[in-house]
């Protein structure tokens, strides 16, 4: 392992994380809801409680964010190196397994760990492990 100091952006990463933590805290405080994106999208598909208005509003905020950002600070860097077949496979896996595991990076990784939930710790360690392993296999064994 060698640290890529040119790519390392500690302050914006920390500040961005603080905004995410603030948003998740506000959603719980004001709405009594967990800011888990896979759960919110999945809930929209299944409508378990018949109240989808807050889900649509929250997801709308996410989608509008880059528009406001671009007006204020210029277009964000979004570099997608994966081709469409890889994106489709990745999307299918992320959709299917975040529902199975009842959470993703936001629900388990941010909200669950903030609640000190043992379930979320296990889920987070699981997806971090295969996330690291998948990139290792792709980049260092297959050389993609």
């Amino acid at each position, binding site marked *: *392992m060698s*640290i890529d100091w040119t*790519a*390392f952006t500690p302050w914006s990463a920390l500040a*961005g*994380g*603080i*905004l995410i*933590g*603030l948003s*998740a*805290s506000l959603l*719980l*405080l004001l*709405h*009594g*809801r967990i*800011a888990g994106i896979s759960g919110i*999208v999945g809930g929209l*598909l299944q409508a378990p409680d018949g109240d989808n208005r807050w889900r649509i509003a*929250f*997801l709308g*905020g*996410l989608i*509008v964010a*880059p*528009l406001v*950002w*671009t007006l204020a600070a210029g277009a964000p*860097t979004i570099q*997608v*190196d*994966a081709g*469409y077949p890889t*994106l*489709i*496979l*990745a*999307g299918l896996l*992320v*959709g*299917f*397994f975040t*529902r*199975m595991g009842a959470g*993703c*990076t*936001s629900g*388990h990784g941010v909200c669950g760990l*903030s609640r000190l939930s043992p*379930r979320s710790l296990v889920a987070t*360690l*699981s*997806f971090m492990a*295969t*996330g*690291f392993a*998948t990139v*290792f296999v792709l*980049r260092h064994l297959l050389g993609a």
Partner: protein
Amino acid sequence: MPIFAAFLIGLLFGFGLLLSGMINPAKVLGFLDLAGDWDPSLALVMVGAIGVGLIGFGLSGKRRRSVFGEPMRLPTRRNIDRPLVLGGLGFGVGWGLAGFCPGPAITALGAGESGAFVFVAAMLLGMWLFGLWQQKRVRQPS
């Protein structure tokens, strides 16, 4: 009013993803590439988010109703079972393949990123397929 608040809270979450760099799959993969030129930035995203979250969830976790008078819908399950672990493991593979997880992918839609549209469409299909598979399992217990 509560609906507008939910929109602003989503906007704030999106700004966090944009500012932190989580929105950029190349940066996410740089964090997941421990054996290459490792970019530790996203560890600090987690430190910032959980640092604030510990306080926020600590304060509001004890409430019986939210500020808008809604019930506090916190997860009640405590069992560590096979779907939890398998779900996490499978999600990590998909995350590592493209560098997108659900929040950044949906936010990237607003930036007009074509890869995000393909990913999100497949993700919705994956969620729908899980729903089907689960219904089938409930009807025909093994």
